[in-house]
């Protein structure tokens, strides 16, 4: 069984954005951690993952239709 998420990768993470990210198909019950691994994003760059505007941890389980964003650490001034 698959489902679809709306995936947004920001700044340096854009290079990991898969084709059709806005309707990205994943397996039912997939965790954020598995998603991050599947996209090839180093875990150190995935400190800020949010679903539907709320920060979540890597163990969170994705649901159909979730709006998922990953923002890398940004430190410049």
């Amino acid at each position: 069984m698959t489902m679809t998420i709306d995936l947004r990768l920001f700044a340096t993470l854009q290079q990991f954005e898969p084709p059709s990210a806005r309707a990205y198909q994943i397996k039912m019950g997939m965790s954020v951690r598995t998603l991050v691994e599947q996209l090839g994003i180093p875990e150190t760059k995935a400190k800020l993952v949010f679903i539907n505007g709320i920060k979540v941890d890597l163990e969170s389980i994705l649901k159909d239709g979730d709006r998922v964003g990953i923002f890398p650490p940004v430190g410049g001034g």
Partner: protein
Amino acid sequence: MNPNSIIDMLMAGARNQQQPDRRDRSVLALQYCADIAQRTGRTRKEIEVLALEHDIIPERYLRNLNILSPADQVGLLQSRACIVGLGGLGGYVTETLARLGVGALTVVDGDCFDETNLNRQLFSSEHNLSQTKTAAAVERILTINSALYVQDYNELMDTENVARLLEQADIAVDCLDNIHSRFVLQKAAKEAGIPMVSAAVAGFSGQVLTIFPEDPGLEQVYGPPGPHAADKGAETTLGNLGCTVSLVASLQCTEVVKILLKKDSDLRNQLLIIDLSDYTFEKIHLI
């Protein structure tokens, strides 16, 4: 001289002027503020505060009305913001807070300008390369608004000096350029019991967060601090652009004003993320 006679002088020096909202306001020119200060032995800031308290508006603050009331302007004039880091963000933040009329500014940086700063750092120019960033900031602040009090520290902030740098500050403004130092400032601001507005940029991206002493703060954004935590972020590959820097600095100043005036802040425990590559603005609930 007693305050009543100063008020008489203010009233004598003020003139009525219709404003764009068609309301008549009693306004006072810069030169009168300076004259009255000199004649009474008060500072210009004291004179401006006294004027505003009697609904006489120094002309330099007229366009802060009505989004800021005269009482709000007094609140800003009687506040001190400590701006830590005078690079891209810090330059624009200093400029904007000085123009808004935040009455006392502490500016902190241990660096001098170099050519790589010219693409975004407001106070840098071809004529002041190798000048200290604090000297340029002080000069600029006093050129814009010589009534303001300025304290400059030509030192890099660290765990040893940070408490001293924040003395008397009502708010810390984090314009630093590395993640480790941001945690140092956050800890000190919490210990001083003052809020902090933190911002960071990289390429077309930026973020802003307000942190009160009881809030979890930066750990929610960067993960826990420590020797193994990254010190730099996406800026090492994406660089820093003037257009992103000035925008994010403006957002940071908006938070500073709201906090100093005790208005509601939307960015407490909510990180504003910005990506100008597609004009994303989104508030992320951190807790």
